[in-house]
């Protein structure tokens, strides 16, 4: 049985692309597309892995990550951050807040899959 992955992202086309790639690879995929209640959704779905966009309506990915890391149940949840802002300071900020992995859009499908596999095997 495949592992659960939750995608939090607001661009419908990107959700569609990632969902397709991951489900073809055998993952159970759930999606959510705004920042307001993202933390609640993570808490209730308890995914094995989280893909988190930075620019989200309602609350930024960084804030969501900070809240998740502060909570007992999600402090160690593997999080892959995706962002369309490719500057170094963004990467540094993500690492400091506790992102497990940081990738810049556009990404290669194969790299995403590889990164996810690594994250769950650790």
């Amino acid at each position, binding site marked *: 049985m495949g592992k659960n992955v939750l995608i939090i992202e607001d661009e419908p086309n*990107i959700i569609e*692309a990632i969902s397709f790639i991951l489900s073809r690879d055998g993952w159970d995929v759930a999606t959510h597309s705004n920042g307001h209640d993202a933390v609640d959704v993570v808490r209730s779905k308890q995914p094995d892995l989280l893909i988190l966009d930075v620019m989200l309506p309602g609350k930024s990915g960084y804030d969501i990550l900070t809240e998740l890391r502060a909570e007992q149940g999600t402090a160690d949840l593997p999080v892959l951050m995706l962002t369309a*802002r*490719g500057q170094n300071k963004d990467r540094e900020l993500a690492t400091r807040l506790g992102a497990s992995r940081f990738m810049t*859009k556009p*990404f290669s499908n194969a790299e995403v899959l590889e990164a996810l596999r690594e994250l769950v095997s650790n």
Partner: protein
Amino acid sequence: MGSLNTLVAVCATYVALLFLVAFLAERAAIRGRARWLRSPLVYTLSLSIYCTGWTFYGAVGFAARSGLEFLTIYIGPTLVMMGWWWGLRKLVRIGRTQRITSVADLVSSRYGKSPLLAVFVTLIAVAGTTPYIALQLQSVVLSFSSFSCEAPSGGTLAIDRNATALWVAAGLAVFTILFGTRNLDANERHHGVVMAIAVEAVVKLVALLAVGIFVVWGLGGGIGQTLARIDASDIGQWQVANGRWAALIMLSAAAFLTLPRMFQVLVVENEDESHLRTAAWAFPTYLMLMSLFVLPIAAVGLDVMPQDANPDQFVLTLPLSQGREGLAVLSFIGGFSSATSMVIVASLALATMVSNHIVMPIWLRLAAGGAMISGDVRHVVLLSRRLSIAGVLGLGYLYFYISGGGVALASIGLVSFAGVAQVLPALMGGVFWRGANRLGAVAGLSVGFVIWAYTMFLPSFGPGAILPLSVFEQGPWGLSWLHPQALFGITGLDPVVHSVLWSISANTAVFVVVSLLTFPNPMERLQGAQFVNVFQHTGNPQGWSGGIAQSEDLMVMAQRILGPREAQMLFRRAAAAQGISGYLPDPTPEFLQLLEREMSGSVGAATAHAMVSQIMGRATVSVEDLLAVADETAQMMEHQIQLEAKSAELTRTARQLRGANEKLTQLSVQKDAFLSQISHELRTPMTSIRAFSEILRDGDGLPPEQLRKYANIIHQEAIRLTRLLDDLLDLSVLENGQVSLNVQVGSIASLMEHAVASTGVEGKGLRIHRHGLERDLMVETDLDRLSQVFINLVANAHKYCDAPEPLLTIRLVERDNHLVVDFTDNGSGVPRDKQELIFEKFARVSDQKAGGAGLGLAICREIMARLGGAITYLPGQGGASFRVTLPMRMRQAAE
């Protein structure tokens, strides 16, 4: 000829002529072609409302009864105009710098903007002027009845005195309302009314001179014989009762300054201080001409007319008795002019006082929310003035009705004079004596007013009318020392001298003593210094210590009082003077003072002050302000003015620098954000394109519909990317000024319809109200570019308006050859700190409300700049509001 109907027709024609004059003058003033309206001659002629129906008819009666004494009424004003024009200049200067609207406003303003004093002076003025208005009604009615008695064909027509008075009062109310309250001018000048009065001044002078010439040469048999007749009659006796003469001269001089109508023409309607120089000799000349033939007419009248003829009507009845009906009609028109011009100005001046100091404060207090409720209140101000005018004339009519018009004309005039003269001590003290204070003024006025009412006003109705007969015989409750015409047992004085002597001297004494014994509050000290030293203090009074007032709240308030357009212009000018762009100047003390003064033109100083304080939260005077008042040797003053100018300049420079610095910091942050943004905007579509193209490349065995769907996504995202690049290029071209414009003429209405239609949002979640599009205006500009701006603004309202029922109001006006289009929605608007940023590239009010790339308003701004216009954010409109202005015809740059 001579019938009453003819007379009514003549009156109606004359009034119609006055309407026409007033109307033309107003129109000329609006078109700015009114230089001749502002000549010293018109000013001087307008002062002639001093000569009322009383002067026209009554002076002859006065002369017939008391000889040369009638001259005192002219000597008083002559002395003031010739000997005291520097004092008048001071009054006029104060009136102008403080935007004084009436004598009540001046007194209240001087004594710390006290609403109580304003109300008090207003009441005194109403009480003092009402008999005077009644007097004018009476003179018109009397002249009507003279005609109906004397004219052979009209003799049978008995006229109803009360009905005539009522008609005249109603007609005058209509005229005054029409020309006195056409608009709420901040400076309260009424060109139409002034012009009509000037015309009436000429008419009455010509009429009186004509009658005089007829009497001297037609009846009296030349100058020599007429003089002989005067010598023969009693009136030629040089009977100078010293006390009475002095009292009357003083009284008329005082009344000349304090009568509401005189103050209106002398100070409020004054256009230029230098006009006083001309008036100083021209007005006494006018008075001299008016009085030239008074004695001959009186002497010949007493000779020729029957014993029981009323000498007050000689001007009219003399020509009538000689069958000179044409001349009589001219004389009638002269008297009519004198009466109407006085009533018009008096009721206008009184209505301004009543409305500003009584009606508006009450209304503003009753209308919940005070200064901050939205909506225009100018119509309320106008309505209250109109009602006040009707009310004042109604009171005058009532007085006429009650008193039955039985008293001789001149004596009513003196009652009025003495009443308003009570304001003189407070007025003079306020202008010349720093020590005068509010409590002193209130106390003095009260004492003077009570004595006047008791010894002069109430007795004027006749014994037994209001005061019981016994009071006149033994004094009230049998206390003879309280006898209304012999206070403290001092008998043998003329009633007028008695009343004036007691009321004015008690008034002055109480005023001075109370002022010396009590302390003025800080606001009074400030205003006192402003008034007394008006020629030194050309700078602003430092009434406001700068606080954190909300400029936007002030704007909302100012729009209600001054009207949106005037308020916006005022704010914009003030902001520009501070070196700030847009509509919201910092609430500096100078700006608040300016705003308060502008508003006081509409609602009076006390109310304007109260409204601004309500928003400012406090009305304190700082220690520095008080020190500034205290240290006032000439040297210190000059030094201080220089320092103030320097400090103001430094403040301005500092503010500009701070502004520039703030903007640079923001720009640098934005520049940083720009790269990040552009990266985000480009990478997002590219992400989908790359992911799906990899899926298509590697995906064998995908079903055809899925293949097509993914290819479609790639296609859409490619288009989105292209559009973004187009926008960026567009903006870059616009910014570099390389754009070529395609200027054509087109209808703004159809352009707007196309723009709205092409957004496709109307009805789909957004209602649109249009104003001002009915008139099909043609503009000459780049129509496609303009349409682009409109589309953007409509689409933005659809995207960002957060009201439950979004409504966009598009309001279009043409102004000064410019098209002004306001797009106002009913959402929560743009926060104050973001209002300047929204026109920058990629600036969004917040991340949450994403929707476009954030280039729309930046492009709009560049387009409008290329079209020679502008787009600005308009604060204080209830929702987000954008104003697009552009010239109706675009000036083509030479290329």
